[in-house]
């Protein structure tokens, strides 16, 4: 069933802060095979002008996607998550995420489309630090595939 268009533009409350830890960044960097010391060694990060180790560019998705759960699990929206695949992903960075950041995410439904029975949902996550400064914006396109004919 097509999703309700009146949800377009809806913004959800900001999430509780996520505190970015050095060791979580290290774990993520190692999991994607990164060897750049800027992710693991504060001195190497400082040589590039960063105040602490920075996170690989896609690290923040774990935080924004968790925040998008407010949308995905909104019973009023009624998205069938068992049929959802990740369509597109985009990030625009004001600065890299770094250790010590306390990040909140504000999720907004940017668009809802229905195409060949598939529901397509665009969610924008605005990520801010503790000082209220913008860090990164994440755009996530989810596609709920049409239910098969029974």
């Amino acid at each position, binding site marked *: 069933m097509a999703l309700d268009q009146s949800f377009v533009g809806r913004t959800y409350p900001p999430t509780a802060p996520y505190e970015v830890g050095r060791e979580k960044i290290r774990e993520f960097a190692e999991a994607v095979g990164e060897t750049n010391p800027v992710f693991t060694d504060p001195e190497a990060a400082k040589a*590039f002008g960063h105040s602490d180790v920075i996170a690989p560019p*896609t690290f923040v998705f774990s935080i924004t996607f968790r925040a998008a759960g407010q949308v995905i699990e909104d019973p009023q929206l009624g998205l069938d998550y068992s049929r959802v695949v*990740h369509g*597109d992903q985009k990030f625009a*960075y004001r600065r890299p995420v770094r250790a010590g950041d306390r990040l909140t995410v504000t999720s907004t439904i940017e668009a809802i489309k229905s195409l060949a029975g598939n529901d397509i949902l665009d969610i924008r996550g605005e990520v801010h630090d503790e000082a209220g400064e913008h860090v990164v914006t994440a755009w996530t396109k989810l596609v709920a595939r049409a239910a098969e004919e029974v």
Partner: protein
Amino acid sequence: MTAKIGYDDVEVGTELPAQTFPVTRATLVRYAGASGDFNPIHWNEKFAKEVGLPDVIAHGMFTMAEAIRVVTDWLGDPGAVVEYGVRFTKPVVVPNDDQGALIEVSAKVAAKLDDNTVRVDLTATSAGQKVLGMSRAVVRLA
């Protein structure tokens, strides 16, 4: 933000060093833990086949993370990435053997923009299939 590549040193068409990234079931389990994405299609063959996939597939976000390494290794400073976006076109199928799958990534400068930034277009393939589409990064050069 100090990339080791200078804006004046690149032209439209400049190729970045290509890389090949191996991915096995162990890689996916590790990524699941680090990212918090425990969807069973990324580690449970029985479940993956039940939902119509050929086998276990890699996390799209894992592929996205690998592809940008071609750019960040070239830049030196990953903090010089201004924008990065992809479309997930085909899954990376990861068989349960010692070899797993390979993700092959190439990239080239597609446009020179304002403020010492350039757009880099990436190509990522696995088993001869294009796994990312519209894969683009904007990066700030020195």
